[in-house]
């Protein structure tokens, strides 16, 4: 059941993104940026928590999760440290994705040559 929910959730988000892309003149960059902001918004409304609890990794692998993690970091940072916490907490949870992407890409860039 969990697996089905993960499939449906992630699939439906991608479906909407594709419909967006096909019916407007936006580029994939616009659409991913929009979905990141949308994820942060869903975090604010309190919906993304629920999505993660029923769709699991289906909700945590799409880019909206990045926005949600940023929101969560800043919000929880404020609870701990006040205004300074907004700044120190913002990247706390999303650090995993950014650091991972940067490190893996850099090491692989050194090893591999571009192909055309």
């Amino acid at each position: 059941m969990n697996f089905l929910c993960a499939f449906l959730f992630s699939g439906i988000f991608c479906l909407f993104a594709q419909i967006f892309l096909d019916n407007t003149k936006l580029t994939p960059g616009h659409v991913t940026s929009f979905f990141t902001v949308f994820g942060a918004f869903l975090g604010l409304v309190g919906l993304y928590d629920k999505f993660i609890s029923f769709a699991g990794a289906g909700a945590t692998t799409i880019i909206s999760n990045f926005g949600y993690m940023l929101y969560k970091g800043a919000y929880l940072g404020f609870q701990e440290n006040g205004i300074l916490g907004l700044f120190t907490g913002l990247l706390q949870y999303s650090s995993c994705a950014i650091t991972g992407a940067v490190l893996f890409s850099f090491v692989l860039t050194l090893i591999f040559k571009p192909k055309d």
Partner: protein
Amino acid sequence: MNKDEYNKLVKRLTPKENKSKNALVAFLVGGFIGFLAEVFATIVMEFTGLSRVDAYLVTCLVVIFLSCLFTALGFFDNWVTKVKMGIILPTTGFAHSIMSAGLDYKKDGFITGIGANFFKLAGSVILYGMVSAFLFAIIGVILYG
């Protein structure tokens, strides 16, 4: 040839972007990525005893690593052009954009090539994500305390 016939001809000859097919492919591939991630996270939880949250982070790292590796090996670009949002919207797209920028500008050297262009495509996601999350967090603090 009158105007009506001409319009019909134009309609017939414009290459059709099969939107419903695109949408279906995006749905299936995007869903499949989410499904695989959930399967992997469940396996990680079973075998290492990590908490749910940590297992999702591990999954996220593995997804990012695989998409970087596939991009470096050269066949991921084809997948992206075929599937589009089904692959770009999951974290795979984020990793792919950084990795391909790194590879494309490798010839320009470490600082002006890789360094200056690394975040060329992923930059907008990070920038607008951070700015909007910061604003939303302030709103959240005002709303929920």
